[in-house]
């Protein structure tokens, strides 16, 4: 006799949510640092460095996250001669993946700052790093917030893929619960609903912020 789906089973799913969030947060931190570096490399006046950054972005935006996960998982094992756990591999892969996307988002935000701002900073005799730090980045940061929040939604959803290599987060917990209860018709929609509760407020926040920034900049968005 299979067990039913009651409050205990729901609690089991709820307890997996922190792992989903922790993984998202870790990837956001790692990816944030990498993304900052990539965005910087994309705008420095050196062609080889720019190509390096473009190559990195092409590689991680042009291959599936699942493949990146597998390569990280088995690659780490090859590198260290021992089977590492799922957690470091998953964290590494999602950080590298986030770095590529965040790098592109932030580069776009930096390049959205009008040219005269750079020229004004140059005429004040600021060096390139100082121009970037004191003049460009504070303005670019504001523009970059809505798409960054949008990417966080993407990231939270994509951490579900970690379930495939056995990392126990919300989706994997759903699989385990399905195996225990034989009630996929209840479990998976509940899992989907939980993701929806996590992601929808962030999606709405991204939309609101975007509208507010457009209004501030006087952009009437047609697209």
């Amino acid at each position, binding site marked *: 006799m299979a067990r039913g789906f009651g409050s205990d089973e729901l609690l089991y799913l709820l307890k997996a949510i922190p792992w989903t969030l922790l993984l998202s947060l870790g990837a956001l931190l790692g990816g944030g640092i990498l993304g900052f570096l990539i965005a910087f490399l994309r705008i420095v006046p050196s062609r080889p460095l720019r190509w390096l950054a473009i190559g990195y972005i092409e590689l991680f935006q042009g291959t599936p996250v699942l493949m990146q996960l597998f390569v990280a998982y088995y690659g780490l094992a090859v590198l260290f001669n021992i089977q590492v756990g799922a957690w470091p591999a998953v964290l590494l892969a999602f950080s590298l993946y986030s770095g590529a996307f965040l790098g592109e988002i932030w580069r776009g935000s930096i390049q959205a700052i009008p040219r005269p701002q750079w020229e004004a900073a140059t005429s004040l005799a600021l060096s390139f790093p100082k121009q970037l730090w004191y003049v460009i980045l504070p303005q670019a940061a504001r523009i970059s917030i809505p798409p960054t929040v949008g990417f966080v939604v993407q990231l939270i959803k994509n951490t579900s893929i970690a379930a495939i290599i056995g990392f126990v987060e919300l*989706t994997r917990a759903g699989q385990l619960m399905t195996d225990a209860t034989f009630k996929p018709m209840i479990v998976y929609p509940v899992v989907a609903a939980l993701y929806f509760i996590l992601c929808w407020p962030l999606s709405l926040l991204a939309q609101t912020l975007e509208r507010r920034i457009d209004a501030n900049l006087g952009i009437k968005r047609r697209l």
Partner: protein
Amino acid sequence: MNYVFQFNVVWDHLPELLNGALLTIQLSATAMALGLCLAVLCAYGKSAGPQPIRWLATGYVELIRNTPFLVQIFIFYFSLPAIGLYLSANTAALLAMTVNLGAYASEIVRAGIEAVPHGQVEAGRALGLKRLQIFRSIVIFPALKTVYPALSSQFILLMLSSSVVSTISAVELTAITSSLQSTTFRPFEFYFVATGLYLAMSLGFRAVLSTTYWAVFQRRGVG
């Protein structure tokens, strides 16, 4: 690191990998075509339909965009049989991909529709065209042309996320790779090569999509 790479094993199994890649391409291309139709329908419903249709379309889009693709696949493949709807792995994969793409692309298409100058719609009305006629012969082509770059990136993201359907035993590239690595015990080499194949496919898809752009829009001088 004293691991000996053995890529010749992968070389021996290359035909099987390419077979898997073929199914990935077939699934993706079909889902792109069907998903685009769904997206156009949904965007039309959202911008010109009666209120209930608008709510329905909005609900569909928000629901899909705020839940992980992996969970959507599980619902199609594992949950639907519980209410008596049995789908083969490939059909479930195709359906999930179509429904997923439809939601993302409908937001993109809607942005394109809103970008068509209102004067053109009024001109159509002045000529006595009906609503659907205006949509079909005035609005939709320029709208799709405007958002074509965004649509192509969405298509490529769909192709990449198709690797996730390997979890329900649709035998595309990722599934074949997984089964080959488990019989040959060379996981790193197999996943490494498969990642390269995905990269090649996303570059290939990008080339095909930009050729399509030229053939459909540029040559006819639409918009």
